């Protein structure tokens, strides 16, 4: 197992704290239209450091914070924690488990944590540098974006080959 679990709180439609446990092999994520499946994919991209609100299907970055329903008020913080197993030493840290956390406030400011220690975005970037983890068209194929991996612009495709090199 690589991704052990993801916990969302206040991220998009996940107003209440929710945790998903993943298994090795193939895990299927099921549910009706609009229930929040692709929001979970967005939350994993986000906690791995995604900076573009557009690829998170949001207008501006604060749009990822739960913005209320007819019965519930909007929240002012969104937080996602992702627990990664590092038993095979895939990532350059000498621990068997790495907990990543990201938090954003309505003010737009993001906070990042690795195993509960506050870090900067560049530390997250360094942790995953050159692994391709969380990158579109390599470890995540978003809904309706099949063309990303087959893209017309040849320079978009080189990404795949360099990732593997």
């Amino acid at each position, binding site marked *: 197992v690589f991704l052990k679990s993801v916990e969302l709180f206040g991220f998009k439609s996940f107003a209440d704290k929710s945790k998903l446990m993943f298994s090795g092999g*193939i895990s*299927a994520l099921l549910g009706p239209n609009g229930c929040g499946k692709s929001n979970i994919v967005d939350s994993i991209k986000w906690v791995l450091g995604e900076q573009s609100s557009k690829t998170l299907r949001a207008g501006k970055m604060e749009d990822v914070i739960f913005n209320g329903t007819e019965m519930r008020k909007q929240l002012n913080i969104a937080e996602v924690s992702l627990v990664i197993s590092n038993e095979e030493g895939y990532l350059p840290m000498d621990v068997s488990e790495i907990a990543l956390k990201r938090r954003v406030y309505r003010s737009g400011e993001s906070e990042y944590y690795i195993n509960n220690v506050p870090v900067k975005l560049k530390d997250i970037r360094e942790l995953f540098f050159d692994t391709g983890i969380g990158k579109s068209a390599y470890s995540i194929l978003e809904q309706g974006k099949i063309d990303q991996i087959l893209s017309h612009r040849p320079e978009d495709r080189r990404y795949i080959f360099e990732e593997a090199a």
Partner: protein
Amino acid sequence: SEELFTASYNQIKMNFHTMFRRLFGGGRGELRLMDPKNVLTSGIDILAQPPGKKLERISLLSGGERSLTAVALLFATYMVKPSPFCILDEIDAALDDANVGRFLGLLEEFSRDSQFIIITHNKKTVIGASALLGVTMEEPGISKVVTYRLSDAPSMPASAALS
């Protein structure tokens, strides 16, 4: 770095052809450097030849053929450098039953080296999964997670979880 790129490019090129044949049940998949003299800046063209057809650019393929070609390229890359995890969000939406079957066959093989999380509405795709995670919105607008672990509840067929 040019050697490194060329080595992995040639490897993926070969794998792409193999994966393409497995997914389409024949035919040919080909990668071509648009500017072979400048390997590090050249674009890469993808050509596909479904069984019995002519080799052509991917823009001429059908919806389902494009999805299948994208999967072939993804798995060709994983043969050189597997990603520890992979999330596929409704990649089977355009596929007919026969192609879903071939896709699942390959997914099963690659799930030995990589962890896969697949989102689908297709009951056939679910049957291949080793764990089911459900998301519901009983309270309108509020997502909740329901876990049906297949290993915990063998009595519940995958399709029951879908309805």
